[in-house]
């Protein structure tokens, strides 16, 4: 029995796309303040599961529960913006930052329900100046902490791949959200930058953030996660501690089978 | 392939050069135009007072539909305007006036906004009399500017009844459609039609004309079925088809077509191919008169088959009009279409009104125009205006399409006198 309460629970979720079964009765649990990995060969359904949790797809069967302190609520079927409002931030495999905005503006954009976003208030700056000032301070704090402050006024389109991933991850910190869904943070980034990112994840985890990470580069992921789920052809193949899973025959077979199939 | 940046560098310089040339050209033109429009107020009489060699140039503004839906009429009007200005200058100088009129012709693309900016900019060049615009919707849009800045507007073709407003600055040298609808109704009834389909453009001209016709035809005891069609399309085959099925379902014995020239010609050339529509009489308003498509063999034969007759504003047996038609054909190679005579007279009236007023004040020119029109018998007959500034008495003739040596042509075959049609000749034996 797990002693730590779960913050995110996926119960026997099934999802089909016109006949193709993407997910078949998959259940995973993410403990509070845990760092959980989700791996599997291509087409195993890990991205689909990710999109179900973040509100992109509605599962055909099964539920997704979010236990946030006392109250727990079902979040499957909510739209992505409502899932975000509950306090679950997601990132993308290819970072989707807002090209025409600067790094600072991308950070300032993230907080939910700002006063200045209401049309009537937007016209009168007095109503949202204070909030903007506070957010700006917090954003600059974050940029300083991660050494990005001199990029504050650089257009995001001019950043390097690694910097983009960093910005996309830390902009989540601008919100009170406690749960992060990272979609292949190490993709397309060389080893040292990948390790930096994962060290950042551990550091944030120490401050009480929970992570569910989909990753293809297992060798990097395994050093940083507490628990791993393995998906194969839309079904849960195995789960357990990183070292157990790595040595599990079925997992090796799935990956090798996949390699020379 | 030239080196990439070279190419774009070249095109930037090329475009920049063109732009500079454009702006320079405009600036020079602007300055040059200053010369062309010499100040109206100070005539160039040399101080000595002897008759100067250089004449006083007075500009008359024209805003014509040289593009857009009415461009086929507009192009012919442009030539009529040039001829009218030449004739006016000859006439005026013959009377010893040391004055030369000059036409400033602008294209308003049959659009409301362009007509307004044309009239405004012409007025701001000191021009006090403007001929045109053609469409009623355009005249309405320029009316408030014209009334408040005292610019005399003379439209040769706007026949909308909603513009018959007393003492304003809008004058129209063509009778309102109420009169012509009466004549068309009398023609149709006299030719034996009892139940007609009124197939008309769905704009102000078409709707107003159709309403008048329906009222008049009902008074005579006939029945008119209203059928509007969408104007401004590139082709009307589908509309003609609906007309054919309507004629069948209503068992009508005639079709009354109220159209301009391009859509009229299009409709008739499709109607010629339908045997349903070739078995009923056809009566037309003045719009299609003069359209080249009606002189093609196909439509000519169709006209003979259905004994096609049309009405149009005309002072029958008006020698001046015959002379005018020859002049236009001989000097500009163009056949006079509908409204050409009204435009010609509008230019004449404008010239004489300016001379009679003797000043550049809009109000004075307006009053002079009313007086001049009282005694002027021109190419379009008597030009006297009624209280609302429209042509007071307008006679109407009946035209047909007859086979001549060189194919088919338009011919005036009758006149409307004392309430009924009198044929001067039998068009379809």
């Amino acid at each position: 029995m797990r002693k730590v309460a779960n913050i995110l629970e996926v119960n026997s979720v099934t999802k089909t796309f016109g006949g193709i079964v993407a997910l078949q009765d998959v259940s995973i649990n993410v403990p509070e303040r845990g760092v959980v990995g989700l791996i599997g060969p291509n087409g195993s359904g890990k991205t689909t599961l990710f999109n179900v949790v973040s509100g992109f797809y509605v599962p055909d069967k099964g539920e997704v529960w979010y236990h946030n302190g006392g109250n727990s609520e079902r979040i499957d079927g909510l739209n992505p913006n409502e899932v975000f409002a509950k306090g679950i931030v997601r990132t993308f495999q290819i970072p989707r930052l807002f090209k025409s905005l600067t790094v600072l503006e991308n950070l300032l954009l993230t907080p939910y329900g700002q006063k200045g976003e209401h049309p009537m208030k937007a016209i009168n700056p007095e109503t949202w100046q204070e909030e903007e000032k506070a957010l700006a301070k917090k954003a600059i704090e974050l940029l300083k902490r991660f050494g990005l402050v001199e990029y504050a006024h650089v257009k995001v389109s001019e950043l390097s791949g690694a910097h983009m991933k960093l910005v996309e991850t830390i902009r989540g910190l601008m919100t009170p959200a406690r749960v992060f869904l990272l979609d292949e943070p190490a993709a397309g980034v060389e080893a040292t930058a990948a390790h930096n990112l994962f060290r950042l994840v551990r550091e944030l985890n120490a401050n009480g953030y929970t992570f569910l990470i989909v990753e293809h580069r297992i060798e990097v992921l395994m050093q940083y996660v507490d628990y791993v789920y393995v998906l194969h052809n839309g079904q849960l193949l195995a789960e357990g501690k990183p070292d157990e899973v790595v040595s599990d025959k079925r997992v090796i077979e799935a990956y090798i089978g996949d390699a020379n199939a | 392939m030239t080196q990439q940046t070279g190419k774009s560098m070249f095109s930037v310089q090329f475009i920049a050069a063109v732009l500079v040339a454009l702006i320079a050209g405009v600036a020079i033109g602007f300055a040059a135009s200053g010369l062309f429009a010499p100040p109206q107020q100070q005539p160039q009489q040399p101080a000595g007072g002897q008759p100067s060699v250089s004449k006083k140039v007075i500009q008359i503004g024209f805003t014509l539909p040289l593009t857009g839906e009415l461009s086929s009429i507009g192009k012919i009007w442009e030539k009529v305007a040039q001829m009218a200005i030449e004739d006016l200058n000859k006439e005026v100088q013959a009377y010893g006036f040391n004055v030369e009129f000059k036409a400033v012709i602008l294209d308003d693309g049959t659009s409301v906004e362009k007509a307004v900016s044309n009239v405004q900019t012409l007025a701001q060049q000191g021009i006090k009399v403007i001929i045109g615009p053609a469409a009623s919707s355009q005249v309405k849009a320029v009316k408030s500017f014209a009334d408040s800045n005292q610019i005399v507007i003379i439209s040769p073709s706007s026949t909308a009844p909603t513009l018959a407003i007393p003492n304003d600055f809008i004058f129209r040298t063509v009778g309102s459609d109420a009169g012509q609808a009466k004549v068309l109704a009398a023609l149709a009834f006299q030719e034996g039609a009892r139940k007609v389909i009124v197939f008309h453009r769905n704009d102000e001209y078409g709707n107003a004309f159709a309403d008048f016709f329906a009222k008049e035809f009902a008074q005579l005891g006939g029945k008119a079925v209203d059928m509007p069609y969408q104007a401004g399309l590139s082709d009307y085959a589908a509309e003609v088809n609906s007309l054919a099925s309507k004629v069948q379902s209503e068992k009508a014995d005639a079709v009354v077509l109220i159209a301009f020239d391009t859509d009229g010609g299009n409709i008739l050339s499709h109607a010629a191919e339908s045997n349903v529509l070739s078995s009923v009489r056809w009566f037309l308003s003045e719009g299609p008169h003069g359209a080249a498509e009606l002189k093609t063999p196909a439509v000519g034969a169709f006209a003979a088959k259905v004994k096609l007759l049309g009405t149009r504003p005309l002072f029958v047996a008006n020698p001046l009009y015959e002379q005018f038609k020859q002049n236009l054909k001989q000097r500009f190679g163009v056949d006079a279409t509908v409204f050409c005579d009204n435009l010609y007279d509008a230019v004449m009236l404008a010239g004489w009104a300016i001379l009679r007023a003797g000043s550049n004040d809009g109000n004075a020119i307006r009053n002079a125009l009313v007086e001049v029109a009282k005694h002027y018998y021109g190419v379009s007959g008597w030009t006297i205006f009624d209280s609302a500034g429209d042509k007071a008495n307008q006679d109407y003739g009946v035209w047909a399409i007859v086979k001549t040596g060189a194919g088919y042509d338009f011919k005036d075959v009758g006149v409307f006198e004392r309430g009924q049609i009198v044929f001067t000749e039998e068009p379809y034996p």
Partner: protein
Amino acid sequence: MLPIDQNTILNFLFYSFFYLLFAVPLTLSYRTTKVINFAHANFITYGAYVAVFLNGLLGNKSLLLASLLAFLVSGTLAIVSYFFVFKPLEKRGASMSLIMISSMGLWIMYNYLLYMLADIAHFFSGVNFVSYGRILYTDVPEITIGSLRLSSGFIAVCATAVGMSLFFYIFLNKTSLGKAMRAVADNPVLAEISGIQRDKVITFTWLITGGVVGVGGAIWTSFSGTVTPTTGDAMILQVFTIAFIGGLVSLLRTGIGAFVIALIENVGISLLNAWFGVPTSFRTFLTFVALLVILIAFPPLGAAGGLPFRYRKKRGGAK
């Protein structure tokens, strides 16, 4: 009795073939070049006016010659527009809407240029070109099957439309250039990598687009009662409507769209007129209603983007 007679069907087919000739190349041009081109209206008008000038100035009666020249003139017009305007803009990173507005500038320029040409032709020949009657061609046969009289115009447009469809089918599926064109349309980046000279393919696309539409314009002069410099403009909204039904992506769906709109405009309006007394002047009204219904009922989410999922009202997700 159904108010549909032989003529209605004939008109329906006429319009279907013409819309096919005008709309399918528009979809092809957008699909490959990603340019919403308003100068497409000029390709139609210039094609028609090649036939008009040939007939008016030289008394030409052969539709074949007129169509050939129309193909060359409108094709060149398309290539010139690409080479001098669309290509430089594309290369310097102009957005889709910016290139669309540049095509609007070209549309205005070509319109006034045509009016000038018509004036100059009139100056030398005395023939009025601003509104020109129907041209009777002698080199296309007229077939009468039983009571049905198929005019030469009908034969020409039917043959050309069918020919074009076959040509596109074979060309796009069988020839290497055709496949390259589809590759550039479906995945420009991949096409670039696999060595397809995008520039050559795009130039060829514009030649075909302008050419086919120009031929359509030339044949139009045998069908329409009057041809004016605004003939193309009056049709361009209909042609875009049809291309949109095809999702600006699939030539097949555009073809179907052509028949659907022609059906609504001919048969639909006469039915509504006969049964509900809807005035025929509501014809274009119907076309736009058809477009709206199609766009809302099953929105083409293909090349043109948009939110990838149906925005859901909140289901009772919360407890």
